[in-house]
């Protein structure tokens, strides 16, 4: 959240309304998932502005259905279900027709189905069921975890709407709990890309993964250092020392003499630091 806020502040300084819209979008989407009404209200305001800018500028229209689907969700929250559902229906339908159901179509279908089942008017349950099946039928090479998780939730809600308690309990129990990584790995083979850490050895120069015992990088040829210490949190004391008015001294004695003085000072300071077991991190202007 804080990073999104920072990004928005930077974008606002740029004065570029598209940049502002791109920064508002993730923040708005995050805010409408927050627990308090104030946060969700602000998220809705941001998303409405994003939607307007994208339409006006004709830019990133591919993101528009997602923004509109969540705008619809917020309108539904405020009780405007009859206005919200057509907006969400259009968004999900648009993604389906463009064959993009497996990206933004997953949450867009999700919020549509939840809202339809909440309203429960004539035909709503049937429409929700059709939307679920449309999402489930979208072809993919292999299991798509995000879709599977959404589908479990949507089917549970649908079963509840049908008053099918057994099916509801079944879907609910299969829904992964928070942090249920084993479920994700087992059921949907997430994390097979563990190759990233298979050897734990990466080139310190270009970052590419290296086979175990590699002495040189396969990509850039840099020598592989195995002495790399992993980053870690440490309790330390940091010491900063700075020569007062160093530029005035430079002006008075000249650059070469300043270098001599500084070198001598740095040597003496480094010796003191070493005497007390410290590490000189850097010398800088």
């Amino acid at each position, binding site marked *: 959240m804080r990073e999104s806020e920072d990004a928005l502040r930077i974008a606002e300084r740029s004065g570029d309304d598209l940049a502002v819209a791109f920064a508002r979008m993730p923040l708005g989407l995050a805010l409408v998932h927050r627990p308090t009404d104030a946060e969700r209200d602000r998220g809705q305001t941001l998303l409405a502005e994003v939607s307007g800018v994208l339409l006006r500028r004709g830019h990133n229209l591919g993101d528009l259905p997602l923004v509109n689907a969540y705008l619809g969700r917020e309108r539904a929250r405020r009780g405007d279900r009859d206005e919200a559902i057509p907006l969400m229906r259009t968004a999900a339908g648009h993604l389906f027709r463009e064959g993009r159901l497996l990206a933004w179509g997953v949450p867009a279908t999700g919020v549509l189905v939840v809202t339809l089942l909440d309203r429960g008017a004539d035909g709503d349950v049937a429409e929700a069921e059709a939307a679920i099946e449309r999402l489930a039928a979208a072809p993919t090479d292999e299991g798509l975890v995000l879709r599977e998780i959404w589908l479990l939730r949507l089917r549970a809600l649908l079963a509840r709407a049908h008053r099918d308690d057994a099916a509801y309990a079944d879907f609910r129990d299969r829904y992964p709990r928070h942090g249920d990584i084993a479920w994700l790995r087992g059921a949907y083979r997430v994390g097979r890309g563990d190759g990233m850490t298979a050897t734990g050895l990466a080139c310190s120069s270009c970052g590419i993964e290296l086979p175990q015992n590699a002495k040189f990088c396969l990509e850039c040829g840099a020598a592989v250092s195995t002495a790399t210490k992993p980053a870690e949190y*440490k*309790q330390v*004391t940091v010491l900063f020392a700075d020569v007062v008015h160093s530029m005035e001294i430079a002006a008075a004695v000249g650059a070469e003499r300043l270098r001599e003085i500084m070198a001598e000072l740095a040597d003496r300071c480094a010796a*003191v630091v070493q005497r007390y077991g410290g590490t000189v991190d850097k010398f800088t202007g």
Partner: protein
Amino acid sequence: MAVFGAPVAVEDHAVRACRAALGIQEETVGLAAEVNDRDGIDLRLRVGLNSGQVIAGEIGSRSLGYTTIGDQVGMAQRMEFGRPAGCGDAQRVDSATC
């Protein structure tokens, strides 16, 4: 900039840093006398100390090497900056260090 307590952790990093800061000021006084004699300028050093948690490790390509990152580093720098120079009271030490 110097770090006490990384890469090898030591319990008394704060005490060591304080002693080192005093030692640095002492060295500076000696050098300043020489410089004053020869160049007629007033060489003074400001020192700031701050303790706390930082991230230590190899950062970036090898030219940067082992370093520390974190609020505490910036804090020490700002404490040093906000202090008058001199030998007696030029040190500024935050409460976590003491």
